[in-house]
């Protein structure tokens, strides 16, 4: 088993006729993901990347059974697209960057009401190596294995995955939860899923400055997680009050700093790596 997605997952791509959507639909298919249909309003009836395009997720799901949708539409339309997908009963990955936070609250609220997963917004997606990739990550750096990875970042995740793979530490599932203040699947949910998953033996948590999700995760690990977990926090050098790229990466007042997060992990007995390359060493210890 892996978590969230596997070889049986059937996927719909929203925004498949756009530049990003078509490009990544193609790469997902090449990776082996079961992309069954695409959705672009007013472009129903066409074909894109070898799959039929529908006007709405509802129509697409009626014609092709699917469990997940992935959204590549501009920020202005992300909420409408996500609600369309959730209303149709699909778990939803929102790749789109720059979604207003009140739209995110609505999307995540709808997912909760429907008892579905949302991953993102502003995220690279989710991958169970060798089985299914829903998102934009470069598939070739991943390797099937038993490390569960959850991260707030995109390229930093690739960096760390690359280190793991080079050190022969394959991954069960990697979840890029996204860098915005409000996201769907978060550290706590991911940890809970990894804890229940037989295939996952160890967990890597990649956090960054801003908010207190890492602090909460540290406490959760101490109380509920029996599997070995290693954490890395980016942003030790970040100044206060400045937004470091991600909307969620702002240190305000005394909270959200790398120090408070590192201390929380230390207090919870979770080892942290000072450099990305230390993560494999800590896992092998």
């Amino acid at each position, binding site marked *: 088993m892996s978590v969230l997605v596997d070889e049986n997952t059937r996927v719909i791509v929203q925004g498949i006729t756009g530049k990003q959507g078509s490009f990544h639909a193609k*790469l997902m298919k090449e990776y082996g993901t079961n992309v069954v249909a695409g959705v672009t309003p007013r472009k129903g009836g066409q074909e894109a990347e070898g799959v039929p395009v529908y006007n709405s997720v509802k129509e697409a799901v009626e014609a092709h059974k699917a469990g997940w949708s992935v959204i590549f539409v501009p*920020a*202005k339309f992300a909420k409408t697209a996500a609600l369309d997908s959730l209303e149709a009963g699909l778990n939803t990955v929102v790749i789109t*960057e*720059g*979604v*207003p*936070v*009140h739209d995110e*609250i*609505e999307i995540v*609220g709808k997912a*909760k009401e429907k008892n579905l997963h949302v991953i993102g917004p502003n995220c690279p997606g989710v991958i169970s190596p060798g089985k299914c990739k829903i998102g*934009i*990550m*470069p598939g*070739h*750096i991943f390797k099937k294995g038993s490390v569960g990875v959850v*991260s*707030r*970042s*995109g*390229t*930093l*995740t*690739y*960096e760390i995955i*690359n280190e793991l793979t080079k050190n022969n530490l394959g991954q069960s599932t990697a979840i890029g939860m996204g*860098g*915005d*203040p*409000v996201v769907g699947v*978060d550290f706590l949910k991911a940890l809970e899923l990894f804890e229940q998953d037989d295939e996952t033996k160890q967990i890597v948590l*990649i956090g*960054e*400055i801003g*908010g*207190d*999700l890492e602090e*909460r995760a540290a406490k959760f690990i101490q109380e509920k997680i029996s599997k070995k977990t290693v954490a890395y926090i*980016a*942003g*030790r*050098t*970040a*100044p206060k009050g*400045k*937004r*470091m*790229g*991600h*909307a*969620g*990466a702002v240190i305000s*007042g*005394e909270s959200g700093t790398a120090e408070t997060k590192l201390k929380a992990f230390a207090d919870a007995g979770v080892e942290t790596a*000072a*450099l*990305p*390359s230390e993560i494999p060493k800590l896992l092998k210890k």
Partner: protein
Amino acid sequence: MKLKEFEGKQLLASFEVSTSKGLVANTAEEAQAKITQIECAEVAVKAQVLAGGRGKAGGIKLVKKSEAPETTRQMLGREIKGKKIEQVLIEEKLEIEKEYYLSLTVNRSEKNVTLLFSEEGGVEIEELAKNSPEKIKKIGIEREFNAREVERKLSTSKHAREITEIAGKMFKLMKAKDAELVEINPLAISRGKLVAADAKIIIDDNALYRQPEFAPLKQRELSESEKKAKQSDLNYVELDGDIAIIGNGAGLVMATLDIVQHFGGKPANFLDVGGGANFEQVQKAVEIVLEKNPKGIWINVFGGITRCDDVARGLANYKKEKQIKVPIVVRLIGTNEAEGKKILEENGISTQDSMEECAKKIVELTR
């Protein structure tokens, strides 16, 4: 994006929340000319800067009305926490009987809007949260503002009904204007009425496309280089070191800064060219970081699907054309990586595969 106190109060007033009466002055003369608008004999002159802890830093002065222009003159041009005072707000002095704290904020862990209330206003909420968290009431607001429920939860307060009414207006403002935070601290009781004596509002940067009235205000938070970066869709933050950093993806760039520091260097900036990277963007990024005359540049691109040979060719040409003198260290991971590295080496740009080696190298080269 933060609003200044007077901007926040104007916004609150437009949603029918009572605020203290006042005027904004950019010069002492303006203060003199407008001061007749104020009827009260005593006034508060308040520096309009985007910095917390203004009062303690001398940014709020209580004076006689006649002295306000002189106080304005003294205050303007001074700095509070590195922020220059360019405007003051002159307000009627409130007779305050009691101070509450009231705010609505985006709650990351609950993923909703949360109302925070305390009977003890006037102190910073972070301080209150640290010293006496039991004095803060938290009420989650899911979708709609349910006044009856909020009032019931605030019922221990003497002014539960009025506070609920104000909170309802704040919620409306928050949704209509895409605010991440609407804070009134203190919410004062003055002559039996509730008045917003201060206001702190933060507008969501991601929503500026549909809140065009705030877009010009965003500009003032940025330095010239930061503005230029923004126009090119680059995320750039100035820091005070001397090693320029360019990378793709916020998390990776943060980690890159951290590792430079780990090996004894000081980063000059944070610059994220975005998830994908093409040469045009890297070129603009190089241009921007060079404005601060760094001692060296480290470009760290983990592309995955980025074509490294493209980026390398462009970078090599650019270096030749613009005669970049400072050392450059490049790390490029992605498609056609070997070819890309070859092109760079031929043009005297060293490449390294590991982040550690890059960091050590750039620190050594800039010593």
